């Protein structure tokens, strides 16, 4: 059922078994898991079913450090969340992403890829992906034209991506959620405060507000914050009336280790003979899966580098395309999306007149790489408050020389392999030429992927939540989504967000079952 929180009497008390805060990929995936169960689920969404500038404005905030997109337009604040304009890229994290790597400070999850595998398999469904198959051989069996570059697989491997249509969760799952008798969706229900019991060991309720001036309270047995990394941290930090440093923040970890995927053009691949490289290409809306080049676990360890992947796109297309950090500048995400689509369209039109002989000879090599976990890269609270009285988020995004050295090494390895294969040559962009230059070019961008502000650790000193995504020291408060990530890996976060959410959902069901 659906209730518009603007339309009910102010001061209403809403009660349920589980309260999910946020209705994006994580919140909706969680709610779907509980349909037709005997439990009453309260699903709180700050916005409505459509974009609302007033609600979107609640996401505005300052950024410092590495230039970043405006916070106001970096995520979408309505039912469905940022799946309202995502590109649909999905791939699981690698085994190496979960382990403790001596050369990556603060790495090491309390769970493994094997722990998450069954949930990855289940997670394929919500974004309407194909089978849980990320082995290049599987896709090559179905399409022999998907030919791998002849590179040594002990150095460079083909990491597969699958593509969601892309599924807009707010559209696709609205009916299922609204029609479910035990799912109580409240729109225009922005959580502004979280109240704990006297000794701050469990949560008693949350306060919700909206621009209509209505204030309500929600009580539940369990609370799940599924508002994305910046907002999860913001809510915990802002809930400081009982815990001065914020909830779950006894060890000053909330908001820290904010991570993004560093995304930027980095090099070019020039082939001696034209090759369409179909395995590596994407035709939006058509391509089901494609590969990106990745460096093997052994070589990452040998060279002590971060995990990243390299996508290939014809240079004739990308040479006319502005960097995303220059396109996505407006506070209004709709204008940014229009600018981006029109830039893609224009670049596509200009490239269309070029012969395949030329288009298939030179490719842009575009990096997508994890950011090393960095406690100085963080979300804090501003003194300035939003219209509902919540301190605004401030983001300090900080990169290090480690990321740049890793990128350079990745291309040196690929360049070497391309040379051995005798198929062409790799040319680095100017910013990578000098190994001693640690600066970043103006076009260095990111993937709009916010991760890591409530990181997972068995040790409360090193993380905010435990392996079950429960906030340390608080018995009934959980976080869902990419805020739990310990490391960012290379893939876009959505598939892992869903997988972790399904795992959390199973855990909560088990927990409730064991208490009845």
């Amino acid at each position: 059922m659906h209730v518009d929180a603007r339309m009910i009497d102010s001061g209403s008390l809403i009660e349920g078994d589980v309260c999910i805060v946020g209705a994006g990929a994580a919140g909706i995936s969680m709610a779907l898991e509980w349909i037709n169960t005997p439990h009453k689920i309260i699903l709180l969404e700050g916005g409505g079913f459509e974009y609302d500038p007033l609600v979107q404005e609640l996401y505005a905030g300052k950024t410092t450090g590495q230039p970043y997109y405006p916070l106001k337009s970096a995520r979408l604040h309505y039912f469905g969340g940022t799946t309202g304009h995502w590109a649909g890229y999905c791939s699981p994290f690698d085994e190496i992403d979960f382990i403790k790597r001596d050369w990556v400070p603060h790495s090491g999850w309390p769970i493994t890829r094997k722990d998450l595998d069954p949930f990855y398999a289940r997670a394929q469904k919500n974004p309407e992906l194909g089978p849980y198959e990320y082995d290049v051989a599987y896709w090559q069996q179905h399409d022999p034209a998907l030919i791998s570059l002849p590179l040594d697989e002990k150095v460079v491997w083909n990491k597969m991506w699958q593509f969601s249509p892309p599924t807009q969760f707010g559209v696709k799952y609205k009916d299922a959620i609204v029609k479910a008798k035990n799912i109580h969706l409240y729109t225009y229900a922005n959580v502004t405060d979280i109240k704990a019991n006297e000794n701050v060991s469990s949560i008693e309720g949350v306060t919700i507000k909206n621009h209509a001036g209505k204030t309500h309270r929600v009580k539940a047995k369990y609370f799940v914050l599924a508002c994305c990394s910046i907002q999860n941290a913001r809510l915990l930090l802002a809930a400081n009336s009982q815990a001065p440093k914020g909830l779950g923040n006894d060890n000053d970890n909330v908001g820290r280790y904010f991570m993004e995927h560093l995304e930027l053009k980095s090099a070019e691949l020039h082939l001696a003979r034209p090759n369409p490289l179909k395995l590596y290409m994407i035709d939006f809306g058509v391509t089901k899966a494609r590969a990106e080049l990745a460096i093997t676990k052994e070589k990452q360890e040998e060279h002590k580098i971060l995990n990243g992947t390299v996508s290939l796109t014809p240079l004739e297309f990308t040479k006319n395309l502005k960097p995303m950090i220059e396109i996505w500048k407006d506070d209004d995400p709709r204008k940014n999306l229009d600018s981006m689509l029109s830039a893609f369209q224009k670049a596509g039109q200009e490239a269309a007149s070029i012969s395949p002989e030329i288009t298939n000879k030179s490719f842009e090599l575009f990096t997508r790489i994890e950011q090393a976990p960095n406690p100085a890269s963080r979300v804090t609270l501003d003194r300035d408050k939003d219209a509902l009285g919540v301190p605004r988020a401030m983001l300090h995004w900080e990169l290090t020389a480690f990321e740049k050295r890793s990128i350079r090494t990745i291309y040196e390895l690929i360049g070497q392999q391309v040379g051995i294969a005798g198929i062409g040559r790799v040319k680095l962009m100017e910013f990578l030429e000098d190994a001693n230059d640690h600066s970043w070019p103006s076009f260095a961008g990111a993937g709009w992927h916010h991760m890591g502000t409530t990181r997972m650790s068995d040790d409360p000193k090193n993380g905010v939540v435990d392996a079950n995504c429960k906030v340390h020291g608080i018995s009934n408060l959980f976080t869902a989504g990419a805020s739990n990530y310990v490391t960012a890996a290379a893939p876009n976060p959505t598939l892992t967000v869903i997988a972790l959410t399904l795992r959390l959902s199973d855990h909560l069901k088990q927990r409730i079952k064991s208490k009845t």
Partner: protein
Amino acid sequence: MKRRSFIQLSLYSGAAITISSFGCGTASEVANKPWVQPQLLSHICDAKTVREIGVRYREKFNNENHEKQLINILLTDSTNKVVPVTSEEAVINSLLEQKIQKDFETGNTVIIKGWILSVTEARQCALFSLTQN
């Protein structure tokens, strides 16, 4: 093979090798030889780019700034013997191909103007820049 007299030349790496001064040839002798231009690179770059790479290579490794010296290094095989510059084109091409392959396999690469190149082909570019002004 003709009588050889040997001179010592220092490579950019600091290693010293022995090379023939007779088999090496001069700029005018090699100017029109196709092997002066790196084969694969010539499929993806124009002559101007190859020349620019060569100039930058010589700036970076200014102890490899002479035609004879570059020719000798390029034509020295894995046993330190120098293939005469008058050899058949196929012989020289085969030697250079092998050297380039080995360079990539052993990591004997260099980054010049962003290009990740085998040291051998970078030297070809350097020679090209000296002979094709």
